């Protein structure tokens, strides 16, 4: 890439890819590699889940069979058949075949049937509840990331000022208190002590009588119900973004290209956004990986606290009732969502930082 110090430079930019065959180019392509990694991760996670469900002593299939025999007086054969149907597993087949079938079922979207609401497929449960979680968690993450970047930038520019000190204290407090406790505090103070929010009406994802449609009324209602979860996600993650962005901005402000940009007479606004802001925000994209997993994982408690019927609420109900097929399906979907969200964050990062695609 860089020219050596003894040979005069050629007048053209050095090519970035050595070897010109197209297969090699595809393998080295940034996007292709990221997608391959995501697919691989999804495969590993589904495999882990399969072995947890099927192979661990005291695994859910055996537990379920034992429960059927115990509570409904079923004989072993019948109980085993029913379990096989529920988990969409052929228990008589050899293990490797079960595994192949399981992967095949996954690809076809067949995740089995719920134990507690017989006849309802896990896929349909996910289809019903997942959009609400994507909506609330996605909105919360985007809001807090954007807000954190803007506030962090301001803090760096007004370093050691009142705003900086206040926000630093706020950020350290809010990012060290567990998010579900912040959720409970919101209910206790905003809903019960000060009564500024009608928390009873805010439960659930929609008000009675409202149907999903592309209308303003529906959007308003959805936001009304998602207000508390979104506020919690924003409050508990914005501090980390703020502090990271502040640190990163302070570093970027010291870079030569910022001084040169000022020497070039660029307008302050342009320097702040395209030169300082954009470069300072780049390292934060790598932190999105951890944040997405954390927020999605935490959403499961937040939704339970606010009785917001998203996928996390379903998971906590399924765990409480030991509804294994639902647990398995929902957990898989949560993991896949996190992997896909990370993939998107990676792509966004690659798009924003031209240096990444080369390496």
């Amino acid at each position, binding site marked *: 890439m860089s020219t050596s110090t003894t040979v005069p430079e050629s007048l053209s930019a050095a090519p970035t890819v050595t070897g010109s065959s197209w297969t090699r180019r595809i393998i080295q392509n940034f996007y292709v590699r990221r997608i391959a990694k995501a697919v691989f991760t999804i495969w590993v996670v589904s495999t882990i889940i399969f072995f947890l469900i099927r192979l661990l002593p005291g695994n859910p299939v055996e537990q379920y069979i034992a429960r059927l025999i115990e509570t409904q007086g079923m004989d072993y054969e019948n109980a085993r058949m029913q379990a096989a149907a529920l988990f969409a597993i052929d228990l008589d087949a050899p293990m490797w075949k079960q595994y192949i079938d399981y992967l095949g079922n996954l690809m076809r979207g067949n995740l089995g049937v719920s134990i507690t609401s017989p006849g309802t497929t896990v896929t349909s449960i996910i289809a019903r509840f997942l959009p609400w979680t994507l909506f609330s968690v996605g909105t919360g993450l985007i809001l807090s990331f954007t807000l954190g970047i803007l506030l962090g930038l301001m803090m760096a520019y007004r370093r050691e000022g009142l705003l900086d000190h206040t926000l630093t204290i706020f950020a350290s407090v809010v990012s060290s208190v567990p998010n*579900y406790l912040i959720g*409970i505090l919101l209910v*206790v103070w905003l809903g019960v002590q000060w009564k500024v929010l009608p928390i009873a009406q805010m439960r659930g994802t929609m008000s009675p009588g409202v149907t999903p449609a592309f209308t303003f009324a529906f959007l308003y209602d959805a936001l009304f119900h998602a207000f508390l979860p979104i506020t919690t996600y924003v409050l508990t993650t914005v501090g980390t973004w703020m502090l990271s962005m502040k640190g990163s901005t302070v570093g970027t402000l010291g870079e030569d290209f910022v001084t040169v940009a000022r020497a070039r007479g660029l307008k302050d606004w342009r320097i702040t956004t395209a030169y300082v802001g954009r470069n300072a925000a780049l390292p934060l994209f790598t932190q999105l990986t951890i944040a997405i997993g954390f927020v999605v994982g935490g959403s499961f*408690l937040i939704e339970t606290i606010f009785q917001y019927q998203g996928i996390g609420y379903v*998971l906590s109900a399924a765990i409480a009732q030991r509804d294994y097929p639902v647990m398995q399906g929902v957990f898989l979907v949560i993991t896949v969502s*996190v992997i896909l969200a990370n993939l998107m964050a990676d792509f966004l990062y690659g798009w924003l930082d031209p240096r990444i695609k080369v390496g």
Partner: protein
Amino acid sequence: MNMIRDILNWLGTTLKLMTYNKAGFIGFLATCTILVICLIGPFFIPLDTRTKLDKIYQPPSTEHWFGTDHQGRDIFSQIVHGGKDVIYVAAVAAFLSTFIAVTFGTLSAFAGGAVDGFIMGLTDIILTIPQFPLLAVLAAFIKLDNLTFLGLFLGLLSWPALLRAVRSQALSLKERDFVEAARALDLGAGHIIFRELVPNMMTYIVISFTLALTAAVYTQVGLVLLGLVPVSSSNWGVMISLAWTQGAIFFRDAMWRIMMPILAIALFQLSVITMTRSLELAFNPRLRTMV
């Protein structure tokens, strides 16, 4: 005698270094206070278990510093007694995850090649699996009625982020002159790791440990709230969980009962995280030689 003097000297220097960051030092003092209250307090303050129907939901007073709960019991004594289990479980988890992170992070950095590739690949995958749901799902299969076992369980899966940090730190140390010099002198792996690396990584290890501690408090209390950890003892998490499941959070007078354990947990987390700022100074070998 000499050894005692050395230890006292070391402690003095450490404390002096820690005061360089005021917020961090306040965090350190607060952490110590909380630890003392939780570990020694129970010997002096008896747990109030007697139901007093005439004293239900009283606000704080000189008699009951933190008020009383739904059975008229003193909340302060419950807070004092409710910390040690939470801290014990978190400490076990933090020890295990720091141990895994430091051992394999350093190994990964120094072995390089396929070992590094395998460890990092595995770490990346585990990092993408949302930890909390995974623990919750596993907790549905496994009986978590033993505190030590609960701690190990929490620690077993919470190392990936720490491992990545330790590895990058070890990678940068690997390139430093003193390690290069030790390698050039062929001083052996043991010497390099324990004489050169560990002292220089001490800051990192200690901070990793404190962060793992707060992470373990987070998951632990979260699992308690979901009812996945059998309620056997009366700890801060259980206090919140009971107040919540009994609907006390919607009852205005019950505020103290719900607020006090939340405050205890929040204060503990905040103190420990703030303390890391001072720890960074105290375990920095370069600063130590300057004093």
